[in-house]
């Protein structure tokens, strides 16, 4: 027994020694390649050694992806000579998988991240490379196609840690409505929230097999909870989420006064009315009874079982527009939004919702930036954003496109190339949605938040944030979707979470004050 133990121990020591050496030599190797490509790169006309970039993207891999990659690689072969290894991570696993990739130091060159995912935390944990130098050296085109505001407002801790992706300065929010049902009951186009609810009630009364309302009940999508979603379309008062605890409304900003409001200190009557109304809707059977258990709301809507769905962006998501009529013959959908097209009405901090970052562990940082720069050319952008012309899409003028019926290239430019200059709008959108996009692409139409450019560093209250998040996740979705009794649920949430949230609020206010006094 003793002898086997000795053998085991000696092997163990050996293994440790080997492991230690190998990790060390890896580090040296990577810095060496960095230097090498760095010195080679400036002569951009020269042919570079082929490099394969591993890029992490959200969603599903489009069927035509390989054709697009082949075309892109052909175009890049003579200049930056990049080969693409695109890894698609399903939305539902995105947060956990990307986090594990970063934490385990997986060799990734470009990765999708977002403030609604875990951007601040990943930056605080030191996973991402600051991009100022790389942008200045290799990213001139990537800079020109984006406005200065876009870079200024999307700094984290005063540095550009990721390339902001966006075609507009405001995130759209939309109620997707079954147009065929609305017309069936002779209801005119929906113009207000009250009319929307009236439509839902009509559906409840007349359609046995259709549930009027569905929205995400998952803690990962708190912004889409039915009651909380109303904050995007209510402007008196306009209640904005804080920067500290994701999409939760419990800490919020209003009046653009640089103050953090805490609903535990004082419940805002408007927010409370949303909660109570959601409860009425749930009890009345208007909100889907299994809302907390449904993981993929899109597919439930696509199956035709639901009449109204709350979604992000303006316009009907293409996935719904194309698959619903296949499942339910004769079904039609339309986009309804109550966000006004009125100058100086909506506040924004110009924060973008999507980013591409270069992880610290990447061995090809220069080439990754060169690739991002390459995507900022019109013809390359069109290829990556819309696929192969004539097969996947058809250009409509300079700023719109039409998806061809046989296209097998799903829409995801927001995940890696999006910018306001080169973006084309879907010509299939209704005119109102297109108007919304164009309106919000102009920064002057929106009120600039006092906190533009501010980002919260959660490090000093890390324990409180994790403790509070775990508590809030227990109650938030059932509260704002009306699944449980409002007063009872609120009191439980308050009793358990108030202490931790107070500390987060104080820290957030402190950082905001420092930011404003700068």
């Amino acid at each position, binding site marked *: 027994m003793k002898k086997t133990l000795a053998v085991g121990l000696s092997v163990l020591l050996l293994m440790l020694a080997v492991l230690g050496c190998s990790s060390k030599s890896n580090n040296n190797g990577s810095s060496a390649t960095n230097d090498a490509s760095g010195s080679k790169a400036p002569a951009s006309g020269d042919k570079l050694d082929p490099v394969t970039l591993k890029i992490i993207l959200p969603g599903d891999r489009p069927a035509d992806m390989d054709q697009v990659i082949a075309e892109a690689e052909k175009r890049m072969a003579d200049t930056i000579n990049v080969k693409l290894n695109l890894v698609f991570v399903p939305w539902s696993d995105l947060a956990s998988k990307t986090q594990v990739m970063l934490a385990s130091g997986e060799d990734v060159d470009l990765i999708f991240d977002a403030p609604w995912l875990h951007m601040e935390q990943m930056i605080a944990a030191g996973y991402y490379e600051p991009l100022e130098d790389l942008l200045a050296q290799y990213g001139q085109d990537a800079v020109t196609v984006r406005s200065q505001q876009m870079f200024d407002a999307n700094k984290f801790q005063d540095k550009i840690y990721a390339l902001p992706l966006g075609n507009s300065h405001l995130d759209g929010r939309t109620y997707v409505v079954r147009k065929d049902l609305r017309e069936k009951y002779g209801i005119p186009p929906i113009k207000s929230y009250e009319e929307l609810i009236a439509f839902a009630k009509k559906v409840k009364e007349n359609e046995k097999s259709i549930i009027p309302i569905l929205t995400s009940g998952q*803690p990962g999508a708190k912004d889409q909870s039915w009651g909380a979603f109303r904050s995007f379309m209510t402007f008196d008062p306009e209640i904005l989420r804080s920067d500290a605890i994701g999409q939760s409304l419990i800490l919020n900003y209003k009046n653009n006064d640089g103050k953090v409001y805490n609903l535990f200190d004082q419940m805002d009557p408007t927010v409370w009315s949303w909660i109570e109304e959601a409860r009425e809707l749930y009890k009345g059977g208007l909100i889907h009874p299994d809302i907390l258990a449904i993981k993929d709301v899109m597919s439930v809507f696509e199956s035709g079982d639901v009449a109204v769905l709350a979604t992000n962006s303006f316009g009907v998501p293409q996935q719904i527009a194309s698959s619903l009529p296949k499942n339910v013959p004769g079904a039609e959908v339309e986009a309804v939004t109550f966000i006004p097209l009125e100058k100086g009405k909506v506040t924004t901090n110009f924060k973008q919702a999507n980013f591409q970052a270069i992880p610290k562990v990447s061995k090809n940082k220069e080439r990754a930036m060169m690739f991002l720069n390459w995507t900022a050319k019109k013809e390359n952008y069109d290829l990556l954003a819309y696929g192969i012309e004539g097969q996947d899409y058809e250009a409509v003028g300079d700023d719109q496109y039409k998806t061809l019926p046989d296209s097998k290239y799903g829409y995801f430019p927001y995940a890696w190339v999006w910018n306001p200059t080169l973006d084309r709008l879907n010509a299939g959108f209704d005119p109102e949605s297109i108007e919304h996009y164009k309106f919000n692409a102009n920064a002057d139409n929106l009120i600039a938040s006092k906190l533009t450019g501010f980002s919260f560093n959660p490090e000093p209250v890390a324990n409180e944030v994790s*403790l509070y998040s775990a508590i809030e996740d227990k109650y938030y979705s059932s509260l704002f979707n009306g699944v449980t009794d409002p007063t009872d649920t609120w009191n439980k949430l308050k009793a358990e979470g108030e202490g931790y949230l107070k500390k987060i609020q104080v820290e957030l206010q402190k950082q905001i004050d420092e930011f404003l006094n700068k």
Partner: protein
Amino acid sequence: MSFLQEIRKNKYLYLLALPGFAFLIVFAYVPLSGHLIAFKKYRLADGLWGSKFVGFDNFKFFFMSADWYKVTFNTAFINGLFLVFGLGIALLLALFLNEIRHALFKRLAQSFIFMPYFISWLVVSMMAFAFLNTTDGIVNRTLEAYGMEKINWYLKADVWPAILTVIYVWKFAGYYSIIFLAAITGISGEYYESARIDGATRFQQIVHITLPLIRSVAIVLGLLGVGRIFYGDFGMIYGIIGDNSALYPTTDVIDTYTYRALRVLSDFSKSSAVILYQSIMGLITIVVFNQIAKKIDKDSGLF
């Protein structure tokens, strides 16, 4: 005889053991050093050794929360149910299968109950939803057909430990029954022969021969299960329950709680701290239960 002589003498035997040793070292002993992360403020950029040592700081977030004993209880309770019912029903299945005399039917029955083992949790979760959802779930339709009220299963936290146990047994009982069946097959036929000569019935043969002879297998499987009693099966629980907050009171286990708390912050050190807590609790329970097992039967302990 020196160490080297021993090796030289039995070099082929040691060579045979080498892959096993290597496996254990790489996958069981080297990772132990990872527990160090639990005491450090781990940052990828600084590496394991470069990161700051922070003592028990990382344990605070878990033990400061009001829920830590509740999720610990949930984990042990759900796993206890799995263990008792999983092994119990597997044992019954093995006994029944052993009594089947028609060879083809026995094979078919075996394969049939073994099959769920290969179905992934994601698919199981969809099947569970198809059974239990409120709008057109099979269970609620049946209830309605008999004129009963629909039940919103996905809001009823109390029944979920039972539902999860049923799912677990359905998925794993076949797998464990094969192990028991193998043990039963190993019992010498002479015992049964002499029992039959003495006039023992089939039932008496099971109670007095089969059960005592496979007791050690049952105890080993039980002890192995007890060692993992503080590890919630994340793939299963998160796959089926997901983020359904209405079911947290009874189904929130240590693993899902930690996942949720750290989803926002994604802190490597804090999750390591929780894993260390689970490991230590697991170690304590397995030592205690091993002692108990040895008290009852001297030879059946694991160590």
